[in-house]
């Protein structure tokens, strides 16, 4: 069972470039999340989705977009990369908020914007 899979693991972007961070889960979880983690800091929520076709902003959504066309996939899009977006990005999913709250995390994507 693969769990939550993120690609790529590392990426370097130039200012103004765009890219999509991929996330897929095979646990049939309805809830999916994107977090960013700056050095020495906790995780901050960028966007989340409560099911296919439904997305909503988290704490730090500016500069990002998401889509959720299937239960399995939740890609994160950076349209105009900025140095402030240099961070480690984690995708997570959970089964049933309210009864089973555990988030399962992917291994992360380390992004540098130069």
């Amino acid at each position, binding site marked *: 069972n693969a769990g*939550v899979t993120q690609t790529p693991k590392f990426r370097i972007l130039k200012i103004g470039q765009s890219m999509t961070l991929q996330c897929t889960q095979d646990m049939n979880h309805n*809830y999916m*999340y994107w*977090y960013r983690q700056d050095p*020495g*800091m*906790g*995780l*901050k*929520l960028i966007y*989340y989705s*409560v099911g296919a076709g439904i997305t*909503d902003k*988290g704490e730090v959504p500016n500069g990002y977009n998401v889509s959720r066309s299937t239960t399995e996939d939740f890609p994160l899009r950076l349209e105009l990369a900025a140095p402030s977006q240099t961070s480690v990005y*984690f995708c*997570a999913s*959970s089964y049933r*908020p*309210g009864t089973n*709250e*555990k*988030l*399962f*995390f*992917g*291994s*992360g994507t380390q992004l540098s914007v130069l």
Partner: protein
Amino acid sequence: GESVGLHLPTLSVQEGDNSIINCAYSNSASDYFIWYKQESGKGPQFIIDIRSNMDKRQGQRVTVLLNKTVKHLSLQIAATQPGDSAVYFCAEIPISSGSARQLTFGSGTQLTVLP
């Protein structure tokens, strides 16, 4: 806004000793708390959770204590092993997060196990 915070950013313990990692939270409306372990280069890994209607919960070598009076959460690791070296995060879900049940993370404590 309200947030989850940690008392100490770093903690060093001798192998075999017990570790205690503390966390202060300010949102009295939070009803669910989780401890995560994050090893270098990896995503956070679930350790143990506790709901606000409980004071204590035990797992394998780990115990979480919740003191709602002073809004304090602690993680106790028994017989600390080298593999326990990692950053530990506490996180909470405020009732105000609604159906999304969004986790709010603290900044983490680096636990180092000394030989």
